[in-house]
């Protein structure tokens, strides 16, 4: 039985009538045409589908859309303010922290969640927070640098 879910996505209220068990990821990508969040594994083990729900990191591929009802969702598309990029996005560009870029939205949103929580993270805290995000081009070294750089930017 379909249900109607109301969620605020990147600041805009959206209403979707659909199967409550459908993954939030599918609804974002198929119904709302926000393809920045990616399918990587479908079981919450790679982080490519990472979005923020009420400011917290969630894995949208294993989050039924019904759980997003009345929640605020931030996806990569909503991170920049107009032409001005979020400091984490800037840091990824400055460090060249992507190769194919498929994991990048998830990496950036995981970093945003981390830095909201811990503005001055240690390397160990970065590793712990980011360990659920897989990059197969294996650009971890530059991604670590980008997260450190972003932390510096956001403290300023």
């Amino acid at each position, binding site marked *: 039985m379909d249900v109607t879910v109301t969620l605020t996505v990147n600041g805009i209220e959206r209403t979707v009538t*659909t*199967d409550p*068990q*459908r*993954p939030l990821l*599918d609804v974002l*990508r*198929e119904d709302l*045409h*926000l*393809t*920045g*969040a*990616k*399918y*990587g*594994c*479908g*079981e919450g*083990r*790679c982080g*490519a589908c990472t979005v923020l729900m009420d400011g917290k990191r969630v894995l949208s591929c294993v989050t039924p859309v019904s759980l997003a009802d009345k929640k605020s969702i931030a*996806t*990569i*598309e909503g*991170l*920049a303010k107009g032409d001005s*990029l979020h400091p984490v*996005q800037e840091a*990824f*560009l400055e460090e*060249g922290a*992507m*190769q*194919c*870029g*498929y*994991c*990048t*939205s998830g990496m*950036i949103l995981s970093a945003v969640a981390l830095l909201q929580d811990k503005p001055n993270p240690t390397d160990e805290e*970065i*590793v712990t927070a*980011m*360990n*659920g*995000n*897989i*990059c*197969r*081009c*294996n*650009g*971890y*070294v*530059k*991604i*670590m640098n980008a997260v450190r750089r972003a932390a510096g930017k956001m403290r300023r």
Partner: protein
Amino acid sequence: MTENTTGKRPESESRKPSAVAGREFTISRRTFVQTLGAGLLITVTDSLSWGQRRGGRGGGGGGGGGMPVVARLHLNEDGTIAVMSGKVEEGQGARTELSQAAAEELRVPFDRIRIVMADTDFVPDDGGTSGSRTTPGNVPPMRQAAATARELLTRFAAKQWQVEANALEVRDGTITNKATNQKLTYADLAKSKEIAEAFKQPIESNIALTAVSDWKVMGISARRSNWRDLVTGAHRFPSDVTCPNMLYGRVLRPPSYKATLESIDLSEAKAMKDVVVIQDGEFVGFAAPSLFRATQALEASAKTASWKTVPQPSSKTIHAYLKEHARMDNARGSSAEKGFADAAKTLSATYTLAYIQHTPMEPRAGVAEWKDDKLTVWAGVDNPPAAQRDLAQAFGMPVERVRVIVPDMGGGFGGKHAAPAAREAARLAKAAGRPVCVHWTRAEEFTWAYFRPAAVIECKGGLDAKGSLIAWDFININAGGSAIDAPYKIPNKRVQSVGSDSPLAQGAYRCLAATGNNFARESFIDELAAAAGADPLAFRLAHLENDRIRTVLETAAKHFNWSERRKKITPELGIGLACGTEKNSVVAACVEVGIDRKRGEIKVREVCEAFECGPIQNPANLTSQVQGCIVMGLGGALTEEIQFENGKILNANFRDYQVPRFRDVPKIGVHLVNKTDIPSAGGGETPIIAIAPAVGNAIFAATGVRIRSMPMRCDILKQA
């Protein structure tokens, strides 16, 4: 292949835009307006015809072969230059590197280049994107095209001003008469009919290219033009492409390899609202307005399916199986027996490799749209012309009615040579009468893609009384022959690669067989060094024949401080090194490994790698590639292994198949050697080959235990 795919259509028909059907013209126009800006109509259609003429031949070397300048390059009136390449971008940096190549020879800044890649309607057939071939095989033709264009433009200006061409200077897209200061810009010349005519001349394959010492755009860390779209989510990967009215497709898979469908009840799926069900022999597919619904239809049907299965080997016994089925009658190479007869000491060892999966972050994806007898697919595939031919054959149509577009995709690592998802999407779309996308799930990617081959590698070596290596016998069963030759001075040597009967589908991988061959060889060299009582570095240097390897080995050892750290080895801390060559590049790595013998665990703490692939075309990109290879190499060395039994993959997910994560990343030092007196080679693969053996050698140095498998089963280090 039908006649009309081989380029026998009349010239006039294929060249002129008027011959292109109106609707197709609209597609073309939309595409280049989008990609290149206005003013490109005729030129792009010209190059389209060029692509089609070559399309059926499958040549794909990317060479000149009489290709006109216009097939590669077009001046835009806004001063930008459109260039075309059949290569795909999958994170390795081809988009940037090819743009740099064109900019360099045209004497324009990097950001003046607009590159169109991997769209079979517009670009030349440059073959597949594999084997590290873009740098040696596609960059030179791009440079030749750009240099030819510059020459033609300069000659045109010289004629206009009635001076010798050497009286002119070309800089920043402007041709200047040095004596009079008269100027013509590329933007001015974009309007010239004479230039348009001149660009129909063939690219000069022997034209002088800019010397490395004069490079201004090549050799810099230029960034990918669509870089920003990757951090904003704006870039559309193959799995992000949508078409109006598109459906989401799923395909029924057998429960195990070689299982055949006996019966299935599709009535429940057929009764589902808005679901299209297709059964065509063994092919059973479902398309629905959402992936969720398509999956429900698939699952409802799959549980009713009855399959005939056949018993198959398992990963537990795979190495015995491969050895048993080895085609030893194919063995070649001269005998090393004399060397072994003279040897004072002889060692033998068997190394093994598991099947592993590429696991690109973006699984296979394809979108198919049938419109007016033409099939267009957007696909994640590294060989667009091969996919085009495959689709044409599958649907019994000429190749020019199939268009394959590859948006910059989410990784490949040699694992995306074919486009099965696009083919499935095309099949479903044809039946549904609507565009369909098929995105493979991770489990499908793990199961129905192909694997880097498993292997058994048998090594035998002989030392003389002074500890010099005098005999070598090396045989790879099943994985292949790349980098199989030992780059060492050994008077009696036999190396061979023999096939076997692989129970799993196997294919290319980042450096393919070179990963296993280097692991076995560099581990076994270490065994021989130990038997000779020699330092592993000194033993290699004493036997190395290849000076380029010598340079990177010495570079890595120096930065790692090998000799000092060698004195500090303990049972809990080992260091190791390895070197090798493949695809005309050379690599050496030193590693430090921490060992917990109680738990049977190791931790790679540091990797110091030196790499050389000729003149460096983009240092930042090359550094990323080397870092990526190092970390990917750790996966193959330590954790990655496909487990299977009776035709079923047992670990088709990221929980049970473990790829490297942030926590696994050691301290990494990358030392790029810029060798400018040879042509550039590709750099995205070879840096992977030294990691596994260096790790194994470090474990041995600390513990005296030699682990001869990839991945290394470190639990054998556990102390009782």
